[in-house]
Each structure stands twice: as structure tokens, then as C-alpha cells.
């Protein structure tokens, strides 16, 4: 499924750190995340709530909350190393962001036509009539029936699935190279979810666009992503191609997650990983996962394991051979 790409990665970020200031404290939400994404690829950032996946995605578009800050060693966009300021200039044009909850991501007092057209107005040099045509084309592209006449409708006149299609149309309006989709199907039911992902997949191929998909649903990741980063408590515990990651997880956390999903699906029982994800201020010393890990040894508490390169994936666990 992975697209062979000779022009090098479309986007690359090395050692991304996100931290939030809370009073005098500095809380790390993301620690040393590195991400490489090729043309037409989908890279998923997977993790449970509080793992830092949304913070990582938000940092890429400089959209962190006021008390949030991020830094990275190196940012490469389309083969060129760029600064943070240059990255910021790319957002909304070459890099767009698709919000989680479609019901609140659309402005309630503007018609959807206006909302699509204002993005075109700001990011392209199209004339007013061309913008109108382009808006209709975008709406047809995201499969909204009767697009031309729905242009003057308000967001509340659409269903959740249709609203998310419009959010997608807005994100596609500036013809981005990279789309960051932050759990694009939150609050939608399963059938609609499948439709949205199918649409995203098709558009990605048509428009040769790369996608960073933030998700917590492993089923979604398995079907629509090429590569995945498993995030736990702000750290990448395992990454690699979805095919190898799902066939042979090397990290106890990934294994736990997959086992959960598998058992729930096959045997209809839920075997959760014991314990809970540590909060921002209570990250344990050593391996972040050791308090919940069945393979834990004293070495795990002593030092934070580095990402170890294996064929097809990398893993941050000293016991990966024992799994």
C-alpha cells in the first residue's frame, strides 16, 4: 500500500517536543517525536486520550493553546529545511487541519458556501465567480448531493456526516500537500465513519496528498494508514509500517492495545491493560510504560529506553525480543 516516493519525504519533523506551562510547572506533553511522511502516504498517530497525539498534531500547525509551546530539531518540507516561521506560513495553504468535531468546527452564522469561499478568497487569487464554481466543485468532490443549491445552507441544516464532509471540503480548498486530520470521525456513527474514511482515502489518492491521521481506533488505522506511530504518555513507544506493526507488535503497549481490540472483536470480552495513563505531571522515571507492563524489570525503572531500529519498525523497549 505504501507509495514509493523518489522525491524524498513530503514532510519531516525531528525531535518534536510540546510542553505546557501550568503555573511554575512545565509539563511535557510530547517528548522527542519524529515523523516522516512521504507523498501520498498516510501516517497515523495512535494513542489513548492524554497520550499527546492531539498536542503533536496541533504543534504541526502551531495551534497549541496559549500556554503551550513546542520545539523541534529539524523541519523539512518538500525536500527543503524550513524554519518555524516558514512552517507557520504554510499552514492553511500547503498544510491544512481538519478539526475533530464538525458540529462546532463550522461557523453557525455563515452559510457553508461563504465558509468555503472565504478560504479560497484568502489563499487563492480566484475571482468571485471562479470561487463560486470552485466551492461547488469542492462540495461535489466530498460527495455532497445537490451541491450548487446547498451552497446557501447553514451548517445546522446538515447532518453530522455531511458537516464533516464540509469541514473536509474547507480543508481541501487551498489544495494542500499535507492534511492533518485530528480524529475526523469523533461523534459520528460507525457507518458514517466508514464513509468518511473511504472518502478521505479516495481524495488522498486523487489529489496526491499526504495525511497525518490522529486516531485512537486501531481498526481505522489498520485500514487507512500506511505507517503508524504509537504514542504513550507523550513518547513514541513503537513506530513502523502498519502491516508489520499489526503483524508483530514489539512493544508491550502496542501488544496490549491490539489484544484489547482483538479480544473485543473476536470473543466479545474486554481485557484492558491494567492501570491508567499517567497524567502530565506524574510521568514515571525510566520507561513511561513500566508501571503497567507485565514484562517489567528493574532496568525498566532505571533508564528511559531509546528507540531501537528493527526491520520495518522501531521500538522503545529493552525487552522487545521477549515479546
Amino acid at each position, binding site marked *: 500500500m505504501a507509495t514509493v516516493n523518489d522525491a524524498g519525504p513530503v514532510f519531516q519533523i525531528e525531535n518534536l517536543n510540546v510542553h505546557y506551562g501550568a503555573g511554575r510547572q512545565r509539563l511535557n506533553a510530547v517528548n522527542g517525536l519524529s515523523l516522516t511522511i512521504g507523498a501520498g502516504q498516510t501516517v497515523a498517530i495512535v494513542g489513548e486520550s492524554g497520550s499527546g497525539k492531539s498536542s503533536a498534531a496541533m504543534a504541526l500547525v502551531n495551534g497549541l493553546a496559549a500556554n503551550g509551546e513546542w520545539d523541534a530539531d529539524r523541519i523539512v518540507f518538500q525536500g527543503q529545511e524550513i524554519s518555524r516561521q516558514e512552517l507557520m506560513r504554510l*499552514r*492553511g495553504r500547503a498544510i491544512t*487541519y481538519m478539526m475533530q468535531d464538525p458540529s462546532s*468546527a*463550522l461557523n*453557525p452564522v*455563515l452559510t457553508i458556501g461563504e465558509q468555503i469561499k*472565504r478560504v479560497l478568497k*484568502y489563499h487563492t487569487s480566484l475571482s468571485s465567480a471562479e470561487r463560486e464554481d470552485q466551492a461547488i466543485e469542492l462540495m461535489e468532490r466530498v460527495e455532497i448531493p445537490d451541491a450548487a443549491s446547498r451552497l446557501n445552507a447553514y451548517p445546522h441544516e446538515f447532518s453530522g456526516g455531511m458537516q464533516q464532509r464540509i469541514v473536509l471540503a474547507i480543508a481541501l480548498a487551498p489544495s494542500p500537500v499535507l492534511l492533518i486530520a485530528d480524529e475526523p470521525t469523533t461523534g459520528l456513527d460507525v457507518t458514517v465513519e466508514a464513509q468518511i474514511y473511504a472518502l478521505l482515502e479516495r481524495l488522498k489518492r486523487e489529489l496526491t496528498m499526504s495525511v497525518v491521521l490522529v486516531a485512537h481506533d486501531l481498526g481505522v488505522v489498520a485500514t487507512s494508514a500506511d505507517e503508524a506511530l504509537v504514542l504513550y504518555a507523550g513518547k513514541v513507544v513503537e513506530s513502523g509500517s502498519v502491516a508489520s506493526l499489526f503483524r508483530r507488535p514489539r512493544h508491550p503497549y502496542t501488544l496490549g492495545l491490539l489484544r484489547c481490540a482483538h479480544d473485543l472483536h473476536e470473543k466479545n470480552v474486554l481485557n484492558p491493560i491494567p492501570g491508567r495513563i499517567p497524567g502530565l505531571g506524574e510521568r514515571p522515571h525510566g520507561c513511561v510504560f513500566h508501571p503497567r507492563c507485565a514484562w517489567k524489570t528493574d532496568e525498566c525503572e532505571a533508564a528511559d529506553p531509546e528507540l531501537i531500529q528493527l526491520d520495518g519498525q522501531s521500538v522503545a523497549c529493552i525487552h522487545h525480543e521477549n515479546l
Partner: protein
Amino acid sequence: MNKARFRILWNRFIGDKLVVLGGVIALLFLVIAVFGPQLAPFGFAQQFRAAAGELLPIDVMSTTATGERLLLGSDSLGRDMLSRLIYGTRTTLVISISSVSMATILAIFLGSLTGYFQGSLFDEIVMRLIDALLTFPGILLAVILVAAWGTQGIKIGPITTTPELTIVFALVFTFTPRLTRTMRGSTIPQAHRAYIKAAQLMGMPFWRIIAFELTPNCLTAVIIQATTYLGLAVFSTAGLGFLGLGPAEPQPELGKILARTQEYFLNRQFWHIFIPGFTISLLVFAFSVLGDGIRNVLDPEFRFEEADV
């Protein structure tokens, strides 16, 4: 706004008979104000004399030496009461409407900026200034400002403003703080909504987000407050006029006319006070009721049924 929605709102508006009455009265006053010069039988400064040559005595339905009949009589300077009332309504309305609209525009501007940049230095400075202005109770601030600036107009370099503008500015100073607070209050929750974040992530500049995304969602409360302030503005303008802080003579103004009716007391025609008095009351009533009607239409949480109880 589409047709069906407009119909619903319109029906809600005309459903309340009192609101319709207020609307009709307000409209009537507006017509009088706009067509004042055409409607008034005489000029507002024109003095009439009785047959004997002295100024016309203050009386209702008096006839001048040259045979003009003054329907509501004249004031102590022999000027036609009806014409002065018409011109006075015009002055009062112009001052009230322009001060409320200027204050509202200013409040929308300041309120949306401070709300969007909540907690910033800019927000702190503006809000503390507003707190300072709010320490003065209502009309007192306007009285102080007009007294300080004088009723002859303000000199700004070579330009001298009209006396009316002095009062407008004074009223703008009294209304803006309260309206700004309302606007800021309705902006803050909206500024944290996802669609604002979406616009930021779209790379839109902040002024565009405030002007086109945020503000249209926050106007309801400030518009409702502004309409109720229209009645207050008429009341304040007349109040200033009554206290001798209205526009300078011979410019008529409802409050000034009311003050002059004191002279009729000497003539034992105390009821004369009801002519400008009733006009002011009617105006304030019309605007207040109209404000209620607009609230009924715009406020999504205000239930009509409750209002009828």
C-alpha cells in the same frame, strides 16, 4: 437570512401588540424628525408679536399681530411652540440615535478585540479604563462632560464641533463602557469555540477572524442592549437639556422646551408642561417597547409565553 426564518422572526415581532404600537409611534417620530422643516409651520427662532407690538403673551391658540395662528401657543420669547416641538424632537432624536449608534459601533469594536485577546495587556488597559468610567453613575458622567466642554461646541484645533456633537460625545462616553462589557462578555465564550480555532488554523489573520467569524456570532446581546439604550438616550438628552446643558439657544431641544414650560406656571397654565413632557414620555415608551420587541425576536432563550404571563 432566508425567507422562512425572516417570516418566523417577523411574526414573533408583530405578535406582541404593544411592540407594534411602540414601533408605530417610533416610526411616526422618525417621520416628524426627518420631515421636520417641511412639517413645522414656522421657523424655530422666529419671534411673533401681539397686536400691541410687544412679544406675544404665553397662551395656547394665540393669534399674532400679522394674523398667524399658533396652535400650541408661544414661549416667553414669542416663538411658535409647535414648530419648536417639531424641531426639538428632531434634535433630540438625532442626538439619541447617533450617540447610541456611535457607542454601539465603538463597543462592538472594543468588546470583540478585548474578548478575543482576553487577558492581554490591551484587554487589561481597556477594561480598567472602562471600570473607571463606570464609577460614575449614568447621566452624571454626561453632565460632567458637557459642563466641562461647554454647550457651544468643542474646539479641536481650527474646527469647532456643533453643540449637538458635544452632547453626543458625552453620551457616547456614558453608554460605551456598559455596551463594551456586554460585547466582551458575549465574545469570550465564542472565541473559544472550535470554528475560531479552525479559522486560526486556516492561517487567517486575527482581524479577519474577529471581523468575519467572531463578531457576527456575538451581536445579539449588544443589539438588544443598544435598543433599550435608545429610550435611555432620549431620556438623557432631554435631561441634559432640562438642566441647561442642551444645545445652545436658539436651537430647540425637548428637554430645553420642557424647562421653559416652567414659565407657564406663572400664568397658571401648569398643564402646558404636558406638551413637551408627554412627547418625551411617548418617545421613551416607544423605544423601550421596541427594545423589548427586538429582544423577543433575537433572544433565543426568551420565551414569548413567559412574557405574556
